[in-house]
């Protein structure tokens, strides 16, 4: 078998199983790496990335259950049921606030989200919780007549051994909605992004229908949690100019949008962590072509994203014209930003999910910033080419792969003292530094204001200008850096160990063993 066929075989998705393999087994994913980009490239080529390596000091991260909550909370005609004690899915209470800020005139659909919890108690963990789950499904079905009901498993439901499939077989005939069990138990995987795969597994297994017709102008986009409303508008605008329509799933999607996924011309990525499972699944089961890289932000990445979509939709000619027009429209503005950053010799550190980990270095490089390092929440072995291409264009840089673990990012900060730092605010407070312009990646999801996009051509300019303003004027960071306490003891800044268990460092990855390497 060729390397390519070997790889594809390895990534086989098995929909007969109730749940997908955890990412560390399926994509050889890791959340523990410290080193240079060139090293992660070499290691992923040799399947030498460490999966079982772990930290002797850990900090809060997400889990497969929480990521599934994030994914499914805004399905418009669906109801989410958390089969768990009450604390797992409290964030679902944020549903009404997520997109209501968008004016109806800008196209916000009618939104009325609902969620239930089976509210597992001490009795339930002894006697089993499926009866209460059945009740919750009945309530959801009667109250809202949804098209779909997503049932999210949890640590508790998993450990007590509740049989979700058995329950679904029993209650589905009495239920109007399609019930989709999602195996996103928190302890299922050490890599929380496995929850994304669990969601797609459920969608592929229970919702996607055999295509009735081919929709040649339809582009599936497994959107990331962080693809905001205004970013969606930009991608919709670009595809619209090619005569194409996006099918954004799962945020704000209807059940029908899941059902017709197999009718699309192509599945295009926004983030590998989030979308690979759906992309490969649709390709494997229904022959919908998929490409897994790059995400559409930054100039070159947006253009190669558009060109790849055009390839699958017969829009090769149109896309070149689009690119020419769009470039002409932004080039003077881009040049001005680039000149300013170059003049300032500004450096940048990016910290985010895989999409931003692999996408922002090139974007910030295009803006004229010097990329010193990136932090990624996880890394899948799926796309070494992406790293290779990045190194070629940007040069080698430091990479930390950690499921947040803000303590570890402290080391990159101490080493590089970057001028600009892009992040999500909840990931540990590194924006509270006087010397660094610590800024957000994306705005909140329902932000409809013109200042907020990051994707596509418009996003490159607005985000570029935003970074430049922040670089030159970051008094909030100064205020915080001057007056806010950090929780880390001084001596840890002098330590070099990444707090990975030394004895596990040399352990080979399961795939490397399997291939005799």
């Amino acid at each position: 078998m060729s390397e390519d066929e070997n790889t594809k075989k390895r990534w086989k998705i098995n929909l007969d199983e109730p749940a997908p393999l955890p990412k560390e087994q399926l994509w050889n994913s890791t959340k523990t790496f410290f080193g240079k980009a060139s090293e992660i490239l070499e290691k992923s080529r040799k399947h030498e990335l460490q999966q079982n390596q772990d930290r002797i000091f850990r900090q809060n991260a997400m889990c497969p259950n929480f990521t599934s909550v994030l994914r499914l909370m805004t399905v418009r005609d669906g109801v989410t049921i958390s089969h768990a004690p009450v604390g797992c899915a409290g964030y679902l209470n944020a549903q009404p606030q997520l997109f209501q800020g968008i004016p109806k005139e800008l196209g916000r659909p009618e939104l009325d989200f609902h969620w239930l919890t089976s509210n597992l108690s001490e009795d339930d963990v002894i006697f089993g919780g499926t009866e209460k789950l059945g009740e919750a499904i009945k309530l959801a079905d009667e109250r809202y007549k949804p098209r779909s009901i997503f049932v999210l498993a949890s640590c508790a439901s998993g450990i007590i051994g509740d049989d979700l499939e058995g329950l679904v077989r029993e209650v589905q005939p009495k239920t109007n909605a399609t019930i989709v069990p999602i195996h996103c138990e928190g302890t299922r995987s050490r890599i929380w992004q496995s929850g994304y795969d669990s969601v797609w597994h459920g969608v592929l297994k229970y919702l996607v229908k055999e295509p009735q017709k081919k929709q040649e102008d339809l582009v599936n986009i497994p959107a990331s949690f962080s693809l905001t409303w205004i970013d969606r508008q930009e991608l919709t605008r670009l595809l619209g100019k090619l005569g194409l329509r996006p099918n954004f799933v799962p945020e704000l999607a209807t059940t029908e949008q899941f059902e017709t996924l197999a009718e699309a011309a192509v599945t295009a990525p926004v983030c590998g962590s989030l979308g690979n499972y759906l992309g490969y699944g649709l390709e494997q089961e229904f022959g919908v072509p998929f490409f897994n890289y790059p995400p559409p932000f930054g100039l070159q990445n947006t253009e190669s994203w558009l060109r790849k979509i055009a390839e699958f939709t017969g829009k090769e000619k149109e896309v070149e014209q689009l690119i020419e027009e769009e470039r002409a429209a932004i080039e003077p503005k881009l040049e001005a930003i680039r000149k300013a950053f170059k003049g300032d010799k500004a450096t940048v550190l990016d910290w985010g999910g895989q999409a931003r980990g692999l996408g922002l270095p090139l974007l910030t490089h295009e803006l004229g910033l010097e990329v010193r390092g990136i932090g990624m929440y996880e890394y899948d072995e799926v796309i070494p080419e992406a790293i290779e291409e990045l190194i070629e264009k940007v040069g080698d840089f430091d990479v930390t792969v950690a499921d947040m673990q803000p303590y570890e990012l402290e080391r990159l900060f101490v080493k590089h003292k970057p001028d600009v730092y892009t992040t999500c605010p909840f990931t540990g407070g590194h924006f509270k530094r006087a010397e660094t312009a610590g800024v957000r990646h994306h705005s909140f999801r329902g932000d409809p204001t013109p200042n907020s996009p990051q994707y596509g051509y418009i996003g490159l300019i607005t985000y570029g200008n935003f970074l430049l303003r922040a670089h030159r004027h970051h008094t909030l960071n100064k205020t915080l850096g001057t007056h806010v306490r950090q929780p880390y003891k001084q001596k840890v800044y002098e330590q070099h160990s990444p707090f990975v268990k030394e004895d596990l460092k040399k352990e080979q990855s399961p795939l490397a063993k399997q291939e005799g390497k």
Partner: protein
Amino acid sequence: MSNEVKSDQKFESKTKSNNTPLEGPRFTCALGSAIGTVLAIDRAVPILHAGSGCGFANLFGYQYAAGIQGVGYVGGCATPSCNLSQDEVVFGGENRLKEQIENTFEIIDGDLYVVLNGCVPGLIGDDVQSVVNEVKSKSDYPLVHADTSGFKGDSYFGYDKTLLAIIEQLLPEKATTKKGLVNIFGVVPYQNIFWKGDLLEIKRLLNKLGLEVNVIFGDPEGGLEALNRIPAAEFNILFSPWVGKEVVEKLKEKYDTPYLLFSHLPIGGQDTAKFLNSVSEKLDVSAETLESVIQEEARDFYDDVDNASDFMIFAFPTLPFAVVGDTTYAVGHTRFLANELGFIPSLVIITDNPPEEVRPVIEQSLDDLDSPFKPKVVYEQDSYNIRHLVDKEQIAVLLASSKEKHYALDKGLLYLSISFPAFDRVILRRTYTGYKGGTTFIEDLSALCAGPF
């Protein structure tokens, strides 16, 4: 909007077991609230013996739900956590916990470390207390463990459990009582979205009476110091008929500290004066001091009401209203609006599932209103049922959680988030408690519809 008022409503006290599925509940699990409780103590560090997502889910679903309150010193992703996974489910998590506690001491700078366990250790049977005892015997760091498996209880349970653990494991067996010192309990950080402002207003008022006030959470005088002061109190003050009751009972048993119980946080002139009166009576505050404090505070407060009245007479003509929230807030708001501002009490939905035996106390506070109109009182935790109860009522004003906001606005109601969850506002030190809180509440309510005449 209708001003119709039904005067024939009777109390509807529905008994409901907590052990049912719930739609959109307005509280978190024991662990979630325990995390919030520890984080609210200055320089106290939670160490989670739990799955990797427990802290995060509660940051998003609990702390951010309390008026987007930030991660602060060691919250959010900075919080140490064992991040238990399949390995620990199979082989047990005790070694992982030991390693995590020891390394937390090395890395995180704190005055108190509190191990909080989630569902996983509770289900796989880790002996968390033994691990904690072992580590404790070899180190000098103050270390406490609270068993807060998520499935064992709700926000109120988690708050009680954490405080009980601290009292049992950290505080000394005996203490000398300090005259005039009081502890404040029953205001659950984050579950009570205005917790910090509430506590500070209570502190401000009682300080004026000459008392020393230990608010513990968000205490400007330090976290561990505040905890250490607990045993010396002359009185404990509890602002809930049931949340924290076990805590003050425990303190009574351990230190013989008596407690004063209030069914709710006072808002505005009347209830706050009553509250100050009760406290003064028990704590030997002189009549002169009490009178001068009330006079001074009331003068400012009613001056504010006076200045707001041009607008209020215009905008709030005997409007019927409903309140949805925990006992602590729902009762206080209803009484303030009905007794002092001329609003008509129509419906009160109590969402914290108070035990049967304290419900008469709550109902008494809501019956004893300066109005022929008595509100319908319902105990309900399910958001679908709450929506339907609100829908049926002819009201003009709704004080509730951000879950109600959008349908309230669609119905043309005046709407303000006063209870958990409040995803639609940022809350730092804001409070509707006391005299100052009464003024702030009038400002916030008026801001919903303020405009020129």
